[in-house]
């Protein structure tokens, strides 16, 4: 599944990013395999997506979000 499939408020870990379509800038901002990502719930606006990745708040378009693969985190597993 990709970030685009996450529900608002859901947290996940990035597992893979499509190397050719994802801008390097996104990686530099902390969007990397292994990073935690949370979809911020704002008024159901789905595009652009408002994300918290690695403590950085940023927004990307839905089409970019589809190229970032994740596995969901069970909220109870959350650690520091």
């Amino acid at each position, binding site marked *: 599944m990709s970030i685009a499939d996450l529900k608002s408020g859901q947290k996940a870990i990035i597992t893979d990013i499509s*190397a*050719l*379509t*994802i*801008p*390097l*800038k*996104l*990686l*530099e*901002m*902390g969007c*990397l*395999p292994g990073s935690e990502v949370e979809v*911020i719930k*704002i*008024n*159901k*606006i789905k*595009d*652009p997506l*408002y994300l918290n990745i*690695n*403590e*950085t*708040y*940023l*927004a*990307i*378009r839905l089409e*970019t979000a589809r190229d970032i693969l994740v596995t969901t985190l069970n909220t109870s597993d959350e650690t*520091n």
Partner: protein
Amino acid sequence: MRQINVALVGNPNTGKTSVFNSLTGLNQKVGNYPGITVEKKEGVCKLSRMLKAHILDLPGTYSLNASSLDEDVAIKLLLNKNDKDYPDVVVVVSDIENLKRNLLLFTQIKDLGLPTILAINMADRMEKKGIRIDIEALEAKLNTKIALVSARKNLGFDKLKELISNYKMLSTESCCEITHIDSAYFENLEKAYPNQNIYKLWLIINNDVNFGDLNRNPIENKTQDFTPKSKSELKHLQQKEVIARYLFINKSLKATLTKDINAAKGLRASLDRLLIHKFWGYFIFALILLLIFQAIYNWSAFPMDLIDLGFANLSELTKQHLPDGQFTRLIAEGIIPGIGGIVIFVPQIALLFLFISLLEESGYMSRVVFLTDRIMKKFGLSGKSIVPLVSGTACAIPAVMASRNIENWKERLITILVIPFTTCSARLPVYLIIISLVIPDENLLGFLNYQGLVLFFLYFLGFGMALFSAWLLHLIMKNSKKTYFVIEMPDYKLPIFKNVVITVVDKTKSFVFGAGKIILAISIILWVLASYGPNEKFSKAEQIVNEEITAENLTLSAEEVNTKIASHKLRYSYIGYMGKAIEPVVQPLGYDWKIGIAVITSFAAREVFVGTLATIYSVGSENEETIKQRMSKEVNPVIGGKLFNFASGISLLLFYAFAMQCMSTLAVVKRETNTWKWPILQLVIMSAFAYVVSLIAFQLLK
């Protein structure tokens, strides 16, 4: 006194400029990098009795991998030892909350072997955010010195200055090894260039920059066993580099930084809920825009009246106290009204930039980008185009430059092409004077000023036209690379007063001394053109007019005679002949030859329109009247009645809304697109469109 070079680098939104302001105070100047239009901010900071620092505030960047021209500037400076600004020491500015992300850039710069200091800004917010850092341990991990500063509270700068002064004590060793991402490749690089910094070579290959002896191809072709990487291999390797750096950073921070995750995130969440609400978000944005325009219109009225009056009096005084002659008249009728025509717009420009810088400083501007992306996407733009387009309301020149942050070329080109439609501050004087002449100063529903509403509508029209033409261009232009959009959503912050003031002063100064020079020069040329004529009809004007009066047996007061002479002179001056020549072209739009001249001279800068009319009308008249009163007395020579009436006023407003009339904008577009094709297309299409629309408007309304 010895001077060292210091470069400030850092991510956008870290308060780097605040740190720069704190270090240099008002001791700074803003210019451009030679040949390109990226803003260059430099300043001087006294470190001790013996030492001062020349501080360069480099454009904000997330890394040393250039994806925009702004970032390119930073990289080129840091790689080029021969640059006169090449830093003795680099200060990487980070903010406390995004330390992790900021350290990416830090580790890259450190790898270049430059003495590097880490300045962590917004340290005053640490406690509130529940963050604790073991500074000594982090210094050891990163192999550097750290200064905790707060530009807002003005804390920690003594420490930072001390660290800068002692830059020679800093380690230049790298802190994060990345060559393992492709050991063979980096070993070969090292073999080929044993005396060069490996990371520098890698950046040169990646960014394809050249410095005389060092450029990409020779590096790649130097040794036989060196296999150059393909573009996608390089990209892949760059990604591996970023990941390797983050691994190191995460490890370093895990041991040194603790964060209480329960600390307040409340402000961001509750403000976001409102400000990017799918209805209230847009509503608030519209309200803010309306407030800005009402403020520009109403709040600036009083200081503008004062300036207007002041310059009229000054001109009168000059005439009284200096002996009559060509020189006195040049000063009183050419130069003083010309300067007055520049200064009068300072209150409005200052107010506009006050608002723009407040929106940017507070973090609200990013929310506007977020809100508008969905809409802008449909027009072939991105939310990022909103900042250039909104800045276009101040001046198209910085706005065209601001579009550099749009990574996608097609989006960027479209943004550049449509920016001149947005209502720049130079149109404002033209709008204001015409609105006040032809729109009643009354209120709708008791509180909405009609004049303010018309102004709002004109801004709206410019913006709408920009979007519409963007959409057209989007359809016409071939689809190039896939677009992407990434925007940081910074924390909300109270704007720092000092930063706002410095922005307002900077922009106002650049208007007065940049556009002002052109305006003054044009004013003087115009005065000369209006004060001399090619033939006897000008030089013998008094004689001719007096003969006419005698012939027609008129009895006129001395003042009426003088007015008649003045208007006769103007008509037969050089400028009169020029105006007459173009009159047939502008007459169908409701203009006379005087407006025609003003429309042409506006090409230097739109606000010259008002100055031109001021000069044309005041030339030869004994009493200095304010321009507006003079304009309202003008009579249309063909159809009679007031020249500036509703129909011609609207026609003029529309002409100024759509026409491409600014040579500085054309020049900057040429520079940004690197061809004359786009600016010339802009000029022809926009001007033709403006002519047709104004023609239709006047013919329908008259």
